């Protein structure tokens, strides 16, 4: 086993990996950009090295600086998290060269599966059905030609992409040019690779993905599916395991297809095969994610496995400790991604300082968070600040528990998507499991309104009290001496903060 691991990421996923290291008794090393000195992953790690200025191209994507931090600290392995360098075959190769273990698949498998175009090719060869489209790295003109050939709607995607970045759906011919431009530009800035491709856009499919684990000897397991149909701008916002539409026979068929594809690619470590599932429960391979997924906790909650620890053990050369028939699903889990975005203003990013934080607790509740009270969410990175996961004996218990936990979750100072999730958890369609990738647009179009009128009087009374107290406080401040210095010692101010009125 390794004695020290470097975590080449930031935010909640860096903390996730640090926790796994700590629970395995492995020393851990964080890296951080100049904008991230106060970030929680730096505080939690055993060691921490600055790898460059705020822009990720100069820090979290800076292979030289990260490999240098590994060398300085004596780390024997690097965990890339998700995003940044996680699916970068070049980085995996450079780790191999530098004699440091990349905790992920070999660079060859990343190349074979990581690009969506070559992944689709491999799937076809392995007899796994795929969505119609062009699987090549296309020029702008070729994208347009192919789009016309397979017919609108189409989706343009970054070949190296993931998480909705560099992805655009085109429904009208007039939007094609600007979508190509946007996809290519985002692909370049997010992944350092401008390659894009196009495929048929299925109208209301469900997004179901299969988690796999493979050890070095080729022993490959599937750990069941996750349903990720609740998406906004093609970015997953709510995921769950198991999928409400997958039964044991379908699970086995999808799982075996995923394992077949992984083995064809010489895959090692944790990975995910994404599928679209249509109304007839036919599944089509969409793309592979050759890394840990954001939503991996829902699989952990129902299987009892710790995927990051499994990744580390596999990378250290250990064989998987269980057989397929020992993988059992207990209950159901749901994850809500908490973004620093304003749900009342079209989800524009809302960076800034967190002035108050109260996290939910209790049974069946898990929080993966990268923030704390007093922390400033920086403008430079992804707005995902936390994930809230709940478990229940069945899907309904998990959903009602999520609703309860979201009521307790309170973040002051920045806007977050918590109120949006509360609405979803009160929606009958969601509670019945009637979700697909059009779900959010279909159910939550238009400006967000209160979903019941019962408490409007209370809202009016509260608003009046709020402005009344604010006016009184302003009045008091005007009569107080101005310019009093604010120091950390004034935090004692908080002592007087809890006022009964």
């Amino acid at each position: 086993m390794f004695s020290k691991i470097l975590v080449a990421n930031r935010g909640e996923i860096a903390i996730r990996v640090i926790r796994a290291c700590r629970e395995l008794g492995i020393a851990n090393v964080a890296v951080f950009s100049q904008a991230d000195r106060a970030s929680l992953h730096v505080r939690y790690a055993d060691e921490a090295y600055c790898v460059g200025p705020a822009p990720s191209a100069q820090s979290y994507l800076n292979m030289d600086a990260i490999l240098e931090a590994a060398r300085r600290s004596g780390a024997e392995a690097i965990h890339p998290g998700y995003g940044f360098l996680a699916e970068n075959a070049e980085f995996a190769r450079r780790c191999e060269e530098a004699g440091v273990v990349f905790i992920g698949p070999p660079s060859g498998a990343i190349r074979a599966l990581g690009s969506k175009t070559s992944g689709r090719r491999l799937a076809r060869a392995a007899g796994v059905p795929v969505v119609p489209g062009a699987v090549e790295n296309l020029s702008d003109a070729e994208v347009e030609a192919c789009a016309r050939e397979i017919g609108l709607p189409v989706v343009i995607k970054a070949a190296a992409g993931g998480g909705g970045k560099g992805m655009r759906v085109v429904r009208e011919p007039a939007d094609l040019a600007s979508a190509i431009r946007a996809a290519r530009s985002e692909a370049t800035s997010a992944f350092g690779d401008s390659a894009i491709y196009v495929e048929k856009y299925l109208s209301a499919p469900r997004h179901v993905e299969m988690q796999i684990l493979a050890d070095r000897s080729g022993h490959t397991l599937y750990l069941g599916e996750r349903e990720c149909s609740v998406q906004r701008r093609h970015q997953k916002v709510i995921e769950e395991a198991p999928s409400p539409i997958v039964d044991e026979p379908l699970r086995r068929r999808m799982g075996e297809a995923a394992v077949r594809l992984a083995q064809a690619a010489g895959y090692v470590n944790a990975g995910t095969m994404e599928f679209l599932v249509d109304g007839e429960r036919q599944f089509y391979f969409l793309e592979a994610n050759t890394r840990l997924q954001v939503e991996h906790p829902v699989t952990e909650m129902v299987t009892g496995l710790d995927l990051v620890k499994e990744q580390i053990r596999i990378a250290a050369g250990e064989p998987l400790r269980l057989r397929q028939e020992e993988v059992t699903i207990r209950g159901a889990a749901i994850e809500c991604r908490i973004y620093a975005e304003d749900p009342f203003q079209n989800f524009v990013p809302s960076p800034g300082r967190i002035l108050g934080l109260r996290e939910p607790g209790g049974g069946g509740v898990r929080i993966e968070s990268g923030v704390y009270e007093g922390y400033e969410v920086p403008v430079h990175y992804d707005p995902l600040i936390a994930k809230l996961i709940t478990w229940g004996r069945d899907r309904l218990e998990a959903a009602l528990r999520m609703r309860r936990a979201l009521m307790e979750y309170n973040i002051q100072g920045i806007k977050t998507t918590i109120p949006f999730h509360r609405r979803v958890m009160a929606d009958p369609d969601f509670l019945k499991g009637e979700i697909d990738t059009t779900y959010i647009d279909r159910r939550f179009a238009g400006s967000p309104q209160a979903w019941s009128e019962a408490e409007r009087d209370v809202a009016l009374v509260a608003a009046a009290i709020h402005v009344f107290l604010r006016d009184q406080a302003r009045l008091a401040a005007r009569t107080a001496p101005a310019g009093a210095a604010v120091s950390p010692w004034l935090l004692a101010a908080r002592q007087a903060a809890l006022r009964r009125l």
Partner: protein
Amino acid sequence: MAYFAQSGGRECRLDVRRDAEGLQVRLDENREFRVDCLQVDAGLYSLLIQGRSHEIDILEMEDALVVLVDGQPFRVQIQDERERRLRAGVGRGEAKVGKRVVTAPMPGKVVKLLVRPGDAVRAGDGVIVVEAMKMENELKAPAAGTVKEIRVEEGKAVGGGDILVVIE
């Protein structure tokens, strides 16, 4: 203090008084609320109203408050008497003319300018692409007109609320 509020198509008047026992709020001259109010944080309150316990989280938006009552959102516009008189004096049309600017909704970086000064634009046309928190956001013209002024350059950082493009 008297306040005037609009919410969900409803208009009402609210009178807030503080006395020895706490806060008393009258809604529209006919309903009285005796409120046991605990202020937990600047925008976070625990209200007990006739035995009902409510957790209130107030988000201040540009033109209104979003009041979360036990997590459920209500948009409330509220003014005191002075503000109400001021607003009454301003024509509604005027406010719209003043809105013919494209502002940055959040801090970010200008990725691309899609128009140049003098270009004619229709309402809804993309005029500028701003990247914030790793997502590109195409900002659109709020109304038809001519691009009068561009106040930023590609590659430059912008702050939340900065005016980026002026359309006339």
